[in-house]
């Protein structure tokens, strides 16, 4: 894979990591309220898959979506402002961390009902097919979604109508605190696709190159009109489910094993080993991430809250 692309992956992952660390800090300082679900540890998955899309392709995702929004190119300042509940936020302060939207970038929302976004993603794909458009839909969900009825209804309809949906399961092994294997008859999510005659593959979600290559193949299949594809990326969230999580349900040893496979570190080591990344280059990327996130916070801080009249706006069109 060419160096420029790998460096771009590294740049995006560093930005997401820094953005999330800063979000946690802002949460601790009371600048961000409600739930905050961090993407730390899972960066390679979103970055690798979204890089395989075209700008006109739709994205429908979940409530752990800051990284997806950044990878899609939503303004970091407008995302941070949304977390702060400001009028300049991507959803004008009315969505919050779990509901980032940017229709101009075909980013159709984070949804906070587990599996709830899946039927909507299928509907966006139906609209594309109905109009004869070439675009596809990326639908991201977690392992917690796969025992919901909406998961099965979505896969079935997408398959029977051969809709252009790439289903991406970010399997971070735990739905909140419940290990997928404890509650699932078939914990290997990719195997479930066979029930709906959907081709599927499992990929190492910590390896951004592997994710990207798998996503490219999946996107090609979906765009060809042959119907949906299910990609399962096995990954790990390094932090708790949300900021309130005491992480009682998994061992520190397990966490250390996964942190040894930090997606950013894996890519950095690989690039350095191949002589494709110098110390100054890495420092420059880190400095850029730091600067972009600092500017995002400054923008969010300086932005006004939604005006009182916004309360009753946009209930109806």
């Amino acid at each position, binding site marked *: 894979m060419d160096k420029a692309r790998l460096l771009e992956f590294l740049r995006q992952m560093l930005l997401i990591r820094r953005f999330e660390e800063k979000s946690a800090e802002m949460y601790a300082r009371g600048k961000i309220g409600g739930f905050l679900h961090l993407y730390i540890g899972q960066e390679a998955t979103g970055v690798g898959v979204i890089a395989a899309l075209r700008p006109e392709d739709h994205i429908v995702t979940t409530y752990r979506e800051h990284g997806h929004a950044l990878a899609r190119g939503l303004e970091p300042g407008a995302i941070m402002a949304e977390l702060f509940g400001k009028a300049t936020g991507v959803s004008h302060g009315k969505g919050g961390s779990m509901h980032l939207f940017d229709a101009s970038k075909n980013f159709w929302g984070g949804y906070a009902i587990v599996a709830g976004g899946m039927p909507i993603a299928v509907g966006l794909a139906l609209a594309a097919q*109905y109009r004869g458009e070439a675009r596809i839909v990326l639908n991201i969900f977690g392992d917690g979604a796969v025992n919901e009825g909406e998961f099965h209804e979505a896969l079935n309809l997408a398959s*029977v109508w051969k809709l252009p949906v790439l289903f991406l399961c970010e399997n971070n092994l735990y739905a909140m605190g419940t290990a997928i294997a404890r509650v699932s008859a078939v914990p290997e999510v990719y195997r479930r696709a066979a029930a709906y005659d959907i081709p599927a593959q499992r990929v190492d979600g910590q390896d951004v190159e592997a994710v990207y290559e798998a996503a490219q193949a999946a996107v090609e299949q979906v765009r060809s009109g042959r119907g949906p594809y299910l990609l399962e990326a096995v990954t790990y969230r390094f932090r708790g489910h949300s900021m309130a999580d005491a992480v009682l349900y998994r061992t520190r040893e397990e966490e250390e094993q996964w942190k040894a496979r930090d997606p950013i570190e894996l890519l950095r080591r690989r690039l350095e080993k191949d002589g494709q990344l110098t110390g100054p280059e890495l420092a420059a990327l880190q400095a850029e991430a730091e600067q972009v996130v600092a500017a995002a916070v400054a923008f969010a801080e300086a932005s006004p809250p939604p005006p009182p009249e916004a309360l009753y706006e946009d209930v109806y069109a």
Partner: protein
Amino acid sequence: MPVMTYREALALTLREALQEDERVFIMGEDIGAYGGTYAVTRGFLAEFGERRIRDMPIAESIIVGSAVGAAMAGLRPVVELMTINFSLLAMDQIVNHAAKVRYMSGGQVKVPLVIRVPSGGGNLLGAQHSQSLEGWYAHVPGLKVVAPSTPADARGLLRAALRDDNTVLFVENALLYGTKGEVPEGKYEIPLGRADIKRAGSQVTLVSYSRLVLSCLEAAQRLAGEGIEVEVIDLRSLRPLDMDTVLASVKRTRRAVVAEETWKTGGFGGEVISLIYEGAFDHLDAPVGWVAGAEVPMPYARNLEKAALPTADDVIKAVKKLF
């Protein structure tokens, strides 16, 4: 004016929408090859083809949810759910998604979606096929809920719903499909959120919606014979709710009865009554009367089902109590 059934009025209006607007398509269980559970879409599949008339798996959540997604993308889907009872399997998509995405996106998306749902009891279908749950949906900001009682209203309100940029739950009491009425010539819209005075009267305001409006009209007719002049208001739309028309009438008549087909507890009739007290308390000469269904799951046996549903006799009794 031409006379047609409620079913024919709906079918005519849907057919026109399909002809006029390429973005309109219909999704539902057994709407195509079978011809529609209540035969509203009979013949549509042959006329419009599988792209526009989509037979769906029995999977209500994906039926509604995929329509929400298609609507967000700019299409104008129409969903037929086989009955309002089955809409509970799609409640997540209706309440958590269709009603919310516009607001939580800060106004970036629209969900122009019509969800048609047969509702109500009286067909000997037992507890799981006989509910009138429209009041639950009327509770939710972001949704519109419409429940016409006549073929003319069904046509005008459906046309307006099909052109609305929001999600409209279009409630069709199943006993109304075969009812006939005069329908104005040509295409017309009735704005959502406007009640209609179905019969003018000076002594009591009778407020209802959907099929029970017909029982109220029968009651009013009979009461007129006894010298009691009843005004019958058909809400037509539960959300938005036109209380202006109701309050203006109550202030004139000084008496009111609210009649609904379903349970009182936590329901829509209580909502209307509170709003009457809030807006016209000082004008009332008597407490507001309330006619509603029995607080039981719907029984099957003919006599028991009949006893569970309010009738014109119940309405007459409630009106007379006010004097």
